[in-house]
């Protein structure tokens, strides 16, 4: 009983301290723009954050501050930007909690998105509820459209734009049959399902379509089965762990296809090209295409990125996030205030020039002006091979055999 009383007082003190600590708010004169981001710095997603997207936000903040900040008329001066980052441990519950902390307790001026499709999905309604603009970064689920959130802007929407481009390329080069495998998650299911009708409409036969669970350690049976069916093209909707395993096993087993496409993974020069080697990945296709040749702004962005981090950026969303932030910055400057509503209205309507060219959102607040859809590694460059004027190089078909070592 005695120690229960002690424990009770202990809890009481803790609760009191906690409440006092929490309710102490800081009111400072406006001398900087504070932006919060709850993103995976540890746990299973941390690897993805490091290779795709995570660095773009850091670099943008540095770039803005190098130029003295963002000019906001309301304050009559340039305000530097501070990025407050919390680790969501790759846990969605932690992410939503931290996002609310940033908004409610830290009272940041803006929030940046978390990493991962499902995470983005959970974050969008939270930010929307408090009237905070959320520009969707890494992650792009079509399903988010259904929620129709006025403060949410979607930057990536690849599954519905990449699949037709891929089907057109396949038709152009003469692919007759394909095998599709996809990861058992939102990304895999959306892409896996999206590809089928486009292929069929163009008379390309889908001979195999199978899902695999995330975390599987051996994909060789799927490669062997596709090979035994004699398909021309092998398409995989997977994330980096699966994409790397799949490529590694195809090389090790010497299983080659005339076309080899993986949605997420080949876009990373650092992870994909440099791990396997420039000659080895020759002819591999991947989603999310742009490169330094796409636009002068893209070249400048690549140069800046290389100068800052000592490696090339990913050729998936990197340029998109960067450009979306440039669009965002111009919207703030035009609004002349930090008021979310005013900025949001400008963002929803206005077209601004960015690194990838003119940037605007459609009526659903989806970004549509892509610099390319499908890329292919050719002599160490991730060339855009879309049909039409976005193409930076013609497709290489059939893909050369994996080099013997």
């Amino acid at each position: 009983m005695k120690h229960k009383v002690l424990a009770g007082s202990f809890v009481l003190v803790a609760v009191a301290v906690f409440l006092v600590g929490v309710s102490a708010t800081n009111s400072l004169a406006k001398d900087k723009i504070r932006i919060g981001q709850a993103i995976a710095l540890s746990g299973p997603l941390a690897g993805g954050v490091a290779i795709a997207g995570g660095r773009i936000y850091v670099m943008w903040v540095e770039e803005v501050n190098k130029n003295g900040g963002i000019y906001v008329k309301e304050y009559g001066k340039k305000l530097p930007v501070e990025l407050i980052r919390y680790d969501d441990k790759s846990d969605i519950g932690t992410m939503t909690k931290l996002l609310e902390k940033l908004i409610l307790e830290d009272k940041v001026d803006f929030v940046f998105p978390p990493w991962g499709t499902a995470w983005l999905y959970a974050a969008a309604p939270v930010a929307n509820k408090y009237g905070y603009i959320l520009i969707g970064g890494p992650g792009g689920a079509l399903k988010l459209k259904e929620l129709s959130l006025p403060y949410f802007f979607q930057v990536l929407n690849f599954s519905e734009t990449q699949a037709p481009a891929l089907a057109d390329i396949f038709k152009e080069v003469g692919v007759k049959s394909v095998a599709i495998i996809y990861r058992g998650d939102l990304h895999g299911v959306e892409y896996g399902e999206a590809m089928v009708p486009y292929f069929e409409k163009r008379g390309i036969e889908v001979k195999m379509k199978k899902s695999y669970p995330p975390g599987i350690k051996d994909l060789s049976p799927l490669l062997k089965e596709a090979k035994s069916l004699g398909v021309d093209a092998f398409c995989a909707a997977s994330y980096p762990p699966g994409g790397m395993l799949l490529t590694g096993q195809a090389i090790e087993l010497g299983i080659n296809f005339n076309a080899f496409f993986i949605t997420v993974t080949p876009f990373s020069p650092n992870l994909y090209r440099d791990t396997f080697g420039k000659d080895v990945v020759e002819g591999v296709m991947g989603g999310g295409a742009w490169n330094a040749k796409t636009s002068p702004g893209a070249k400048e962005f690549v140069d800046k990125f290389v100068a800052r981090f000592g490696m090339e950026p990913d050729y998936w969303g990197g340029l998109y996030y960067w450009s979306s932030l440039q669009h965002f910055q111009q919207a703030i400057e035009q609004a002349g205030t930090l008021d979310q509503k005013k900025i949001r209205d400008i963002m929803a309507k206005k077209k601004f020039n960015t690194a990838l060219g003119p940037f605007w959102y459609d009526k659903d607040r989806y970004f549509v002006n892509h610099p390319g859809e499908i890329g292919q590694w050719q002599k160490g460059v991730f060339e855009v091979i879309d049909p039409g004027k976005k193409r930076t190089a013609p497709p290489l078909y059939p893909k050369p055999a994996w080099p013997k070592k």
Partner: protein
Amino acid sequence: MIVTILDVVIAGLLMGGIYALVAVGLSLQYGVARVLNVAHGEFIMLGAFITWSLYTMAGINPLVSLIICGPTVFIIGFVLYRAVFTRLRTSSASPAAFEGNSMLACFGLLFIIQNVAILIWGADIKGYTFLAFPVNFWGAVFAANRLVTLVFALVIGAVFYLFLARTRLGKGIRAAAQDPGTAGLVGVNINQVLALCFGFGALMAGLGGTLISMSYKIQPTMGLEYTIIALIVIVLGGLGSIPGSFIGGFILGLVGSIVTYIEPGLALVAYYVIFILLLLARPTGILGK
């Protein structure tokens, strides 16, 4: 058809070798030292990253790295046992309390090691290519690096089995596993033997990490995945038994390979179905008592 069956069986055995290798060290750590080391996968990760660093920076052959990684990780494991678990063993009220407490401590270690690895190597996926060419067996084709891994796994397992069966220290370890008190009475230095044992478990994890890095891409957060596989394997095969780890590993590998061939989406479901059925039918594992 025959080639297909051969394909499936060999793929299963290759996978099983990797699983066994991952599990052997944990089996020792739990079977003898009674530490349910949930940070086991972190030691595998350390082995893998040391190998990667040596290969990409100094061009050292991963098979040579075995000689470097094993001892390095052994020392880390040994020192950790002396620093944390020896004390915990005496301060815990009962063996059951020690198991709970040591599991909590291992969670702490998991956090520490993973964070240190992220600080050193960054969180992103890394990898290199080594022995990545096909080998042909009567029409069935397999990756050279996985074959090498299987061979090394078997050799490492056999050497360690002989070490436990034949040498003085090995017998001391087995005696300590069966009855630590009496082992002390016949002259076994229990604290030292348990620390060595934990170190050997870490050593196996380090060697496993080196071999795994030849076939798989690696990242600092990869550990838990391998810990889980190892736990399944040692429960399947019987705690503390080295042949048991291999049998458990091969069963898991074969089941995975067969199910992946039929319906890949159910591969992981099959793992757990086998695991749960076996636990219900024979809770002490195939070679357990």
